[in-house]
């Protein structure tokens, strides 16, 4: 089992939070949305997705609920909580700061 660096884990969290801005989704749909948003750059497998989802739910950023899915079966839907919204904002800010700093560092000769 590959251990994710903290940077990658933070990035995944950020993407998942963003994917849920438009409304609640179940696991597969979240992975699908992340793939869509990043133009196929990030394909999140279940081995990374579900631990992240459960961890974020325990942190209080997501809330889960069982609902009916497109194949008429039950699936677990995740939605953004208020705390999750705030987390999304702060992580976005942080990401901006970090990427700015790294870009600047890479540009210096």
């Amino acid at each position, binding site marked *: 089992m590959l251990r994710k660096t903290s940077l990658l884990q933070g990035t995944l969290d950020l993407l998942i939070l963003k994917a849920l801005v438009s409304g609640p989704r179940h696991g597969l749909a979240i992975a699908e949305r992340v793939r869509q948003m990043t133009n196929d750059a990030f394909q999140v497998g*279940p081995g990374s997705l579900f631990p992240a989802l*459960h961890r974020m739910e325990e942190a209080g950023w997501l809330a889960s609920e069982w609902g009916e899915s497109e194949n008429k*079966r039950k699936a677990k839907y995740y939605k953004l909580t208020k705390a999750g919204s705030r987390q999304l904002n702060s992580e976005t800010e942080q990401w901006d700061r970090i990427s700015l700093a790294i870009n600047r560092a890479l540009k210096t000769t």
Partner: protein
Amino acid sequence: MSIVNRLSRIWRNIIHRRQVEDDLNAELQAYVDLAAHRHAASGMNPEDALRAARRDAGGMESVKEAVRDARSGSLLESVVRDFRFGARLLARNPGFTTAALLMLAVGIGANTAIFSVLHALVLRDLPYSEPDRIVVIHEKRSLEGALRNPVSAPDFLDWREQSTSFENLAAMTNIEVTWQSEGGAERIPAALVTPELLDVYGVRPAIGTGFRSDVSTRPSAILTHGFWQRRFGADPSVLGRSMTIAGTSIEITGILPPGFEYPERDVELFLPLTWRSRESLDRASHDYRVAGRLKKGVSLGAASAEMDGITARLEKQHAVSKGHGANIVPLSNELLGPIKMPLFVLQAAAALVLLVACGSLANLLLARMLARERELSIRLAIGAGRGHLLRQLLCESILLGLAGGTLGVVLAFTVVPLFRYLAPTATPIVGATRIGVDSTVLAVALALSVLCALVFGLFPRYVGSESDGKRDSRERRIVRACMLS
């Protein structure tokens, strides 16, 4: 996440573990179904869709493992699970488990039992006040090679008068007296002691005042605690009453505290030792034992030097004292000298026995590990981490160690009272009544059990980590794969 939240999360994850697991299973199953549905919907034929779905489902076990690891309390839950698994495994191999438990029980039990004796007698301070200042003074006859002769009354009195190294000096002797009780006349063991004896030992009567100051004209008696409990029903009103000892009516003026066992354990009461006229005493009659308390700051060497000077003077003055000197021995040496070394040796022997037992256990465990290679390699294949596997094996060892240790302690509990009973009452093995499996001994037993568990649990790992280099046999490879984390 706040502490409360985290704790409630952990609570939920552990207590409602089954629901949480069922929930996760359902969620992942739904994921697979949806994936299959989407494959089919995107134009894949049903067979490929099914195959793709199965491929997704194949990784589900490791996904579940990853989710479990990410959960709060997962470590605690995991460890608890490891212990349960270990317990089940031990139960399923009754032969091995019984053998292992027996070995451990005997090994740890023996060590615990001997340690309880060592602890009560040797490792703790003697039960007196500032025991390192209490000494016993024997008469030394260098010409005859005798070092522990009893002392005569005139010598004692001269020593007491002339020495300055001691806070007090006391003399005593054992006698048997006739006590006229309600039940008739009986002989009871008593000690005749000079009144300073209690001060030498730093003991105050628990009830009463001790010997009276006019003890030479009106003798009084001090009862030992045990005697008072057994024969007087622990009745405090006996103070002031009289006992008929050797035909004389003697007032009871004190009861000693429990646990004061001197000079011997079976002494029932203390009577005052006094001499009427000094001139009538016979210097050649050596009847008494002498004990003293060194003054603060006076070393044994200094006291010995002073006593040598005194005895040399006495030698010159009295022909009968020729060749007599004084031998000052610290009380702990006097009481424990002969038993210290044997006890330590016994403890070392028991420790060796335990070490050997652990060695054989380690071998047994290693053999079992080889028998389990199939199970272990399967578990490695489906994604169990090596560290996790090692932790599980360690849990098993700890369970074994603790169970064996508990049995050993039970064994010790049955044997140790026997030691206490067997300690001879004639020789002053002070502290013998303290021999028991108390909290210190139990703590040592616990530490020993855990230590053993670590030794025989980790030993296979150590063995596995040494590789041949040249030719790795199949067994070695499996063992190494399982043991190295």
